[in-house]
């Protein structure tokens, strides 16, 4: 997703009362994260589970969060998502950069990238893949989910290999 779209995505979420951006940086999401840094609305954590914990505390205090991470970090977090986010029904939007979407991505991303859609399905976390065309519609879907106290995920594909 190009820089301008990532900036628009961030600004749209802020406009819709997502106050906190907590997570671990990912190159697929770098423009989104840079925007969050620029707007001073970000907490960069040491691991993804930590970000989920912080977002949980904020969510229960009435302040909504996006938790951003790479799909490798999402895989790290599966137990936390099932035993905290889903078990307690704590709303938050996961924003996941999807490495290993391309078959010629770096080798460390291939195996986990291949099963990324299955991981989301297995843990029953509702998700949508964002594109430059549909991102606004998918964001509206995610905002509605958290309004109904349901966590969900938005995924951005890594469509180039540099």
């Amino acid at each position, binding site marked *: 997703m190009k820089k301008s779209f990532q900036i628009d995505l961030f600004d749209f979420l802020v406009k819709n009362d997502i106050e906190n951006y907590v997570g671990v940086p990912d190159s697929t999401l770098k423009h989104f994260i840079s925007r969050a840094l620029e707007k001073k609305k970000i*907490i960069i*954590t*040491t*691991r993804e*589970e*930590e*970000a*989920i*914990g*912080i*977002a*949980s*505390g*904020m*969510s*229960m*205090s*009435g*302040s909504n969060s996006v938790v951003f991470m790479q799909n490798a970090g999402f895989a790290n977090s599966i*137990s*936390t998502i*099932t*035993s*905290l986010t889903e*078990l*307690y*029904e*704590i709303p938050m939007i996961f924003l996941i950069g999807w490495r290993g979407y391309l078959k010629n991505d770096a080798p460390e991303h291939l195996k986990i990238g291949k099963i990324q859609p299955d991981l989301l399905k297995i843990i029953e976390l509702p998700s949508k893949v964002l594109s430059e065309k549909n991102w606004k519609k998918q964001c509206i879907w995610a905002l509605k989910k958290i309004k109904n106290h349901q966590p969900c995920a938005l995924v951005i594909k890594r469509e180039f290999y540099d």
Partner: protein
Amino acid sequence: MIRKEAMGLILKKIKSEPIISANGFISRDLFELKEKNSNFYMIGSMGLSSSIGLGVALKNPKKKIYVFDGDGNILMNLGSLTTIGTLKPKNLIHVIFDNGSHESTGGQPTAANQIDLSKIAKSLNYKVYQVKNKIQIENFYKKINSITGPIMLLVKIDKSDIVSKRIDITPPQIKNRFIKSLQN
């Protein structure tokens, strides 16, 4: 002093302040000693009570927020101390009940006795207080209001085989009443 005794002494000083408690016997002791709506019993996600507490503390700066943690729990999420030490919530009181063991899973040892948690926490901008008996807990509470957080209260305790009852409230109920309590 065992955990339940130490926790009981600290709970005497706590009224309705929110407490986020680590999974395992720590949450079970809290449930048995002082059940209240502003307790968030974290029954899974080991290691994360301090992270949840950080999120609550940042969004509720006028309330004192307690985390009841264990040595095994914090060693699983040492990174959390870095984030807390960077964001410096003045209202966070991070209590660590340290028995040098994973008591909930059968008493296996942790590394807590072989390292210095207080030094780690101090270097990460915590104000650290170590206590191991009633008098020291009383002394800590005499000065607590003059200390700017984040505070770490390291409570050295003995292992014990007393097991408190399980929490019989569903996780969504725990969450919903916790949310309501924060609104007061």
